[in-house]
């Protein structure tokens, strides 16, 4: 199977006794067939120039995926560009009533940002599900998106929130919806020399709530079998006037099924609407069979996760 991030499974994959022997430099350092140049530029312009200069260059944000891939020799970059020295990529700022979050902001930093957390609790809860405390101190939303795992937890939450990715590249800056960045497992729509610089979470309408839920067999430190992000807005009479639903780990990239969102819009998000949401979410899922769950199981759980996430989002929209 393909592993997508540091917080993957592999428990007990090694006989425990082997950890007592230091296996020597050749065995423990990822061998690597090429020289790996490391650069830590302090400006976006310098980072873009470096990435544009080397087609085998990789961006290093938190490193919680990249270092795993380096050691497993699944990648052999000749250049690694550490973006954590670039101030704007590590900044959280207000912009037109919304928030701009640098792509290299860590999960821990965002989780400690009370203002952001109070507006977008669903995004923060998704990010905080990624790995452990030690992972969250390094891992970033930019990395979670660009690693392009179909099971990335923060991605459905960002799609539901309507977040925009701001991309910098040799031809300048462009903005795209977060859902258009990953195109399949490990693949993105980024062009040569481009990197995701930041995310814009636009100003939120009043009476809006968001939530993210995932199913995993353990309670911590696992990869989503199914993930669901929901964001919905109510009017003064508690009727849903806007909704976005996004599903993770049930297709080659995060989905945003229109039918699932439409099941909520125009309703008071009652049992009938939630049942329709559940049906629409399950119908949209196109999962694979693997050791984490069968296709049939994932399809069923998709509806359950979507419904429960919508119930939490509803309570938050009502200010509960």
């Amino acid at each position, binding site marked *: 199977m393909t592993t997508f991030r540091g917080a993957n499974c592999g428990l007990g994959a090694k006989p425990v006794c082997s950890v007592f022997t230091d296996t020597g430099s050749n065995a423990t350092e990822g061998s690597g*067939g090429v020289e790996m140049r490391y650069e830590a530029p302090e400006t976006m312009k310098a980072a873009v120039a470096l990435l544009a200069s080397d087609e085998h260059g990789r961006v290093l944000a938190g490193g919680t995926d990249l270092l*795993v891939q380096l050691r497993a020799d699944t990648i052999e970059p000749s250049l690694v560009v550490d973006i954590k020295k670039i101030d704007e990529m590590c900044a959280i700022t207000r912009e037109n009533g919304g928030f701009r979050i640098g792509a290299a902001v860590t999960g821990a930093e965002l989780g400690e940002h009370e203002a952001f957390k109070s507006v977008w609790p669903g995004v923060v809860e998704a990010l905080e599900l990624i790995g452990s405390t030690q992972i969250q101190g390094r891992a970033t939303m930019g990395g979670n998106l660009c690693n392009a795992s179909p099971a990335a937890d923060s991605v459905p939450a960002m799609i539901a929130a309507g977040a925009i990715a701001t991309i910098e590249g040799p031809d300048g800056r462009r903005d795209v919806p977060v859902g258009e960045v990953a195109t399949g497992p490990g693949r993105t729509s980024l062009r040569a020399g481009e990197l995701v610089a930041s995310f814009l979470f636009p100003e939120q309408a009043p009476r809006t709530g968001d939530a993210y839920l995932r199913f995993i067999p353990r309670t911590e430190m696992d990869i989503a079998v199914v993930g669901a992000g929901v964001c919905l807005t109510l009017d003064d009479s508690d009727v849903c006037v806007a909704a976005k639903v996004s599903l993770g780990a049930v297709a080659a990239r995060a989905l945003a099924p229109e039918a699932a969102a439409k099941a909520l819009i125009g309703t008071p998000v009652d049992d009938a609407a939630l049942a329709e949401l559940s049906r629409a979410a399950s119908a949209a899922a196109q999962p694979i069979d693997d050791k984490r769950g069968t296709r049939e199981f994932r399809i069923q759980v998709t509806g359950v996760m979507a419904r429960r996430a919508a119930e939490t989002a509803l309570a938050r929209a009502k200010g509960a």
Partner: protein
Amino acid sequence: MTGVGELPETRSVTLSVNGERHEIDVETRMTLADCLRRKLGKTGTHLGCEHGVCGACTVLVDGRSARGCLMLAVQANGAEITTVEGLASRGGEWHPLQQAFHEHHALQCGFCTAGILTSMVEFLGENPDPTEDEVREALSGNICRCTGYQGIVRAVLDAAGRLRARNGAIAP
């Protein structure tokens, strides 16, 4: 492997480890954990899974816990690193967490202990009076094969009390 006649790409970095400043040349691919163990002899930091799951290699980087196996040494340039060797006082007196681990039988083989201690130093710094559930959640990033965690949880709760008493005695 590097090709015949090629030298591995290296970088000069400055690390402060347990308050001692080191200027060393490291290969760009070397992880922080390998650097601490091999270049600086800080073998108290253990390497288990080497892909970010087991937590044995946890060290503090500028006060925050991080996986030593998921950071390159070059990324830590300029950082203050604390390893398990830096927890006891200069005079050799154990950190209250170490004392509590000793008294509560919170380790058997000890392989995971350094990573648990460093993780819990950060945790108790942020949450000086945790509940048992909070301790268990904070321990979820560290895997212990031997103890079943009961002694570890007791030790962390006991150490929290000792640290509160110690810090309360110092504070006005």
